[in-house]
């Protein structure tokens, strides 16, 4: 332990922070549909997922020997500064997509960070272009198609088989099945993703000389990675859960079961056969497939489109942040400090921004208005792409109804005066994002009057 320099220590802490963001970012993959079909209560779902992630971190002993899966040339070892910069890029992108409620791949964020940091420090020559296409682009296109088609067909068959049977009679069974499939997804996630963090920490320790080459990760590394991912999962990325469980399509129990089973089967098949697919892409595709599979089911392509754009931006955006961080971090201790302080500040700012429109376990199921018609025009779609997550067409909802919940929700945001509801309502209406907040609050206030006071 005495070999651990300050820089290595910073890398370890940053890796654990990334692991934590990975946890809450990916809770949705296993639990979004489970929560939206009512198979499990929101808190129960995230608790179960957290426990399974923790178990998953311990069940497999095989730890990734390379952190980039061959994307970059690791033969000569990776500088701790580069790993640090890569992690910073990945964390910031995870935070931003969480704020926007976009399910995006944490592994892609890490890959993008590594690519950006490597290019900034060693040039394009250190990147294996073929591997990028093989391991990043093709899987990103294939994953939603594979899982989506399987889920579509399974949903269709399931509805055909249960034709004429009362939906209430079968719902309980489908929910039970869905919980099992979601459990498998959680377990697989803990195994895969916690290992990535263990790999990063182990490599950092090796590069700093604290561990011999080819050493296995010490127990404290395994335990801390498992605990960080489980804690993140338990926190619950409610914004992403809402998008996945309610935003893409309205999910009924048979669909939830088909989607989650398709996700579990695809993830296990891909990791076993050795063509690794991103869990997030698989799960999003499965949810879309189940939306298409039910008669009368509607996939909100505006939300899906925004998600696809997020996937496309993941590598360049995380790479850009990581590249800039790498340039700074290589300037020495002062540079590393600047990057660290900048990252902490950015995360704090994103968190504060999230409090303007909080989503938690009390309002996670108040999705967009269910009667929201599919926007027709290209312009509408384009505008929604850059706008905050969708809200229903409830702009005409009387605002005073929502006002009383705003002061509760704005705990860390701008001060809202409960004694001046009219003024608060006018302010909220004048601001585009605040009016979105008012709308979602209006729906939460009307559907669950007691919920807003809990948050």
């Amino acid at each position, binding site marked *: 332990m005495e070999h651990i320099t300050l820089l290595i220590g910073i890398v370890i802490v940053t890796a654990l922070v990334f692991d934590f963001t990975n946890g809450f970012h990916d809770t949705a993959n296993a639990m979004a549909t489970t929560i939206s079909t009512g198979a499990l209560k929101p808190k129960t779902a995230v608790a179960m997922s957290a426990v399974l992630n923790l178990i998953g971190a311990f069940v497999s002993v095989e730890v990734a020997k390379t952190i980039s899966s061959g994307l970059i040339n690791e033969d000569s070892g990776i500088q701790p500064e580069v790993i640090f910069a890569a992690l910073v890029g990945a964390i910031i992108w995870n935070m931003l997509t969480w704020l926007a409620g976009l399910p995006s791949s944490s592994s892609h964020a890490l890959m993008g960070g590594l690519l950006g940091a490597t290019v900034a420090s060693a040039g394009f020559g250190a990147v294996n272009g073929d591997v990028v296409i*093989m391991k990043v682009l093709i899987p990103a296109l294939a994953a939603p198609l594979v899982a989506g088609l399987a889920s579509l067909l*399974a949903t269709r068959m399931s509805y055909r088989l249960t034709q004429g049977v009362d939906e209430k009679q079968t719902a309980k069974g489908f929910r039970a099945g869905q919980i099992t499939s979601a459990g498998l997804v959680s377990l697989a996630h803990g195994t895969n993703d916690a290992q990535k963090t263990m790999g990063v920490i182990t490599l950092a320790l090796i590069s700093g000389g604290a561990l011999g080459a080819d050493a296995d990760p010490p127990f404290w590394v395994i335990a801390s990675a498992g605990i960080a991912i489980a804690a993140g999962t338990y926190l619950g990325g409610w914004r992403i859960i809402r998008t996945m469980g309610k935003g893409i399509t309205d999910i009924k129990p048979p669909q939830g079961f088909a989607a989650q*089973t398709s996700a579990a*089967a695809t993830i296990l*098949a891909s990791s076993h056969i050795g063509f690794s697919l991103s869990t997030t892409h698989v799960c999003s595709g499965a949810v879309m497939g189940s939306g298409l599979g039910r008669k009368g089911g509607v996939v909100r392509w505006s939300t899906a489109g925004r998600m696809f754009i997020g996937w496309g931006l993941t590598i360049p955006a995380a790479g850009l942040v990581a590249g800039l961080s790498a340039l700074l971090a290589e300037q020495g201790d002062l540079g590393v400090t600047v990057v660290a302080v900048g990252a902490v500040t950015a995360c704090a700012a994103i968190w504060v921004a999230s409090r303007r429109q909080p989503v938690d376990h009390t309002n996670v199921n108040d999705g967009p208005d269910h009667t929201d018609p599919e926007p027709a025009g290209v312009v509408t779609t384009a505008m929604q792409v850059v706008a905050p997550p969708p809200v229903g067409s409830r702009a005409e909802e009387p605002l005073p109804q929502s006002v009383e919940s705003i002061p509760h929700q704005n705990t860390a945001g701008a001060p809202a005066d409960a004694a001046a509801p009219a003024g608060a309502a006018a302010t909220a209406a004048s601001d585009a994002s605040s009016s979105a907040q008012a709308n979602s609050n209006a729906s939460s206030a009307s559907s669950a009057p007691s919920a807003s006071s809990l948050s």
Partner: protein
Amino acid sequence: MDIDWAALGQVFGVSLVATVGLVGLFTLGILGTASKADGTSAAALPRVGAYACFAVCALAVAYGIYLIAA
């Protein structure tokens, strides 16, 4: 460029067959154990079939856990 189409095809096939097969079996299991419209519980033969379906699904889950741990 060396794209492993065979592996991708395999993933595609295995995922499709496993998902549709398991969802189908589980749905049959649910149908077999569901009580009839008049409120009486399901007949013996469908119920035995349903339990067999659930058993196959349970085996699949066990295999899944084995794959994760191995």
